[in-house]
Structures are given as C-alpha cells and as structure tokens.
C-alpha cells in the first residue's frame, strides 16, 4: 500500500507538471515583473528564469535553493498571459526535489515541528500562560492528542516524510 501511494504520487506529479503546459511560456517576464521576491532579492530569485530552468534542466534545478523562495502570493498566477499555473508548478517541482532527497534546512525543521506539535510555531508553557493572562484559551504545547495521532497516521504513508526521518 505504501509503495503504491508513493509511486502513484510521482506519476501524478509528473503528469501534473506536464499538464501545466510549461512549454506555452514565451518568457515575457510578466511573472518576474509582478513578483515581490524578485523585486527585493533579484539576484536570488527570478520566476521566469526558474520556470525555464524547470523546463530545460529539471535535475539541476531540483538541487537549487531558488526553488524554495517563491512566497506563494499568486500575483504571477493571476497575470500570466499564457495562464501558466506558476505558483502550483513551483510547488510540484518542490515535491520532486524532496522525493530526490533534497531537503531544505528550515522548511524541514518546520515539518518536524508539525509532526511533533501539529503547528508551525511553538507554544511554550510561558506563552500559554501569557494567553491565559489575556483571557485567551490555553492551548497546550501540542494540538489535541487525537489530532496529533491522526497527523502521524496520515503522514506515515508519505515516502518523502519517512525518508527524511
């Protein structure tokens, strides 16, 4: 069952990326022109270039940090004249990178935190007390037992998360 889901996932990804009509891109630059990240760190991120790299040199691109700099704002997605689903393409490509074994440091640490606590930010006992002082419900260091268990079960079958461990 596990192997089945893992291999289906890969096929789904490949199909999804091909289905997203990458080759329709004619490099107009609307995405980079609209990108908040490219605006402030142009040397590190260029969505137009990244898209072309995914098309021309997928294997090398999977190893690069640039893939993880998209902030997921959907501005390029809204404006692309060829309706390329840029934001989703980057997401799918990240999946491929992780499957190949490239785990970016900080996101991986956050995934571990999610597995431990069900959240992307820590609620320390001190913070929980602060909540109580403000009249907010105390929520504990992790989400409910049941929820945490369910997260574990759901993620168990994922090849990528297991490999990382």
């Amino acid at each position, binding site marked *: 069952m596990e192997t089945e889901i893992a291999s289906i996932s890969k096929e789904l990804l490949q199909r999804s990326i091909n289905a997203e009509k990458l080759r329709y891109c004619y490099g107009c630059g609307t995405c980079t022109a609209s990108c908040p990240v490219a605006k402030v760190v142009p040397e*590190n991120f260029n969505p137009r270039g990244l898209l072309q790299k995914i098309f021309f040199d997928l294997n090398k691109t999977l190893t690069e940090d640039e893939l*993880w700099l*998209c902030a997921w704002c959907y501005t390029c997605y809204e404006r692309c004249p060829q309706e390329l689903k840029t934001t989703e393409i980057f*997401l799918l490509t990240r*999946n491929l990178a992780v499957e190949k074994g490239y785990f970016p440091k900080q996101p991986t640490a956050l995934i571990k935190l999610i597995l431990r606590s069900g959240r992307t930010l820590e609620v320390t006992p001190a913070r929980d007390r602060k909540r109580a002082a403000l009249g907010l419900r105390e929520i504990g260091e992790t*989400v*409910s037992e049941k929820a945490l268990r369910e997260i574990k*079960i*759901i993620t168990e079958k*994922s090849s990528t998360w297991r490999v990382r461990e």
Partner: protein
Amino acid sequence: MNLEYSLFPGCVPSAREFSCEVSARKVFEALDVELHDVGDFTCCMPACLVHSFDYVTGLALTSRNFCVADEFNRDILTLCVSCYGNLSRAKKLMSENGDLRRRVDELLAAVGKSYGGKASVKHSVTVLYEDIGIESLKKNVTKTLKGIRAAPFYGCHLIRPREYLSFDDPAFPVKLDELIKVTGATSVMHRERAGCCIGCGSFFGEVAEEAALRLSVDILDSAREAEADCVIVTCPYCFLQIEMGQLLFKRRTGELYNLPVLHYTDLLGLSLGIEPKELGMDLHKIDPTPLLERIK
C-alpha cells in the same frame, strides 16, 4: 445577529501574536457573533510548506481540518488570510479534481474520515463585509475616527487567486477600503495596497528573511508616501512582518518609521467604542498611542 462560526485561529495568533485573536474576539463579541473553539483543528498545513513536501499528503492534512469542521453545523472563520487562502484552495481542489479527492480520501480513510466539504471558509474581514454587512456595521459605530489616514494592506490570500476565492477584485480591490470608511477613517491609496509581505515565504531561510525585511520597508515607504497614519492589515503574518520590519530596520540603520500597524478589527473596535487595551493594542510593538490620542 445570530451568526456562529468555528474559529480557526491559525498558528501565528495561537503561538506568536496574540493581539490578533484578542481583537477579533472582542469585536465579534460586541457584534453578537459567536466564535466556537474547536479542539481538533491543527495548523492549516500551508501549501507553500507542507504541500511542497508532498502534494497529496499535504492536501489530506488540510482537508482533515474540514472533516473536523463538518462535525459541527457551522462555517469556518479564520483570523489569518494565509489560512483563508490555503483552506479555500483545498476546498476548490477537492471539489473539482476527482483524482486528487480520491487519493486524499484514501489517506483520510486511515483515520476514519472522509472529505465532505460542507463548511465554507471565511475570514474575519469577509464575515464583516459579507455576512454582517457595511450598513449593519455603520449602525454600530459610536465613535468616528475622522481624520485618521489609514493605508489598507489587503493581504495576498484575501484577494488571490480568483480561481480559489472570490472576495474582491485582485487587480483593484475595494472592500477593505469600504470597511475602513465605515469607521470614519480615510482610506488612502498607496502603491503596495494589494502587495505581498512575504510572510508565507519568510521562514525559508536567510535569503527569504532578508527579502521579507526589504519588502516590509517597501510597504512602509509606500504608506509613508501616501501620508498614512497607520497601516491596516487583515493577517497576523502581515502584522508581524510590518511591525518587526520596523524594528529590524531600526536595528540596522537607526531609523524608526514608527508607523502603527493595526488589525482591521482594531480599527473597527475603536469605532465601536471599545477600549484599546481590550483590543490587545498594548501588545503592539510599535506604540499606537500617538494615534489613539488623536482619536480621543
């Protein structure tokens, strides 16, 4: 008003930035809207992080929250636009992509769940605009904030992409401006009003953090050029970025913008006559006192 919602606070209001939840709860209480806590919610499992590792598993984790919500007969109210966007995206994908839905349901079956998709996803701002309405809000305003120039910062996932959510026009949104006007304040036109704070991407490493800082400076410049007295945000991530941005900038250059950042519920709450402390405004890192003095 007989409105009830399942509250989906999100990680930032829960763990890091409490004024958002304090403010929202106070305002909805004043408007007679009931927010129910739901114990089994987890992080919304954002696509840019969790789905980036595994598309299908990530979607299953997000959908799990819907299954939890569907146990009650209520819609979901999020405090964070990232949660709003992420949940809306999941809802759309699950309702339109039979292939994905099947795979997600396979995973959910292992925990005895299956995706129903009954509950709608809303955000505090969409509830105020759509479910309560401008006219109704106007009736509740007791203190006009006339003379305050507020720069709205919509937040990416409140308005984009149209494919997943349809609250307002992505190119030229107007609804937050209208909501600001309800309080009597002036909503100013500034170039970054529909921009991005890179909150969602900021935890991806040093470059991302640097990008987030530079962008918050750009947003602050934009608000300052338009002679705004404050920035109004709809998302605790944006709140953090634009506040922390000012502090980090000060550390780097010695200059402090000193532009108060307010949740929209703060602005509304003040116009409803609620005391700033009750809205959690004393928790803000950029002191809003000079602004509050003017309102008195």
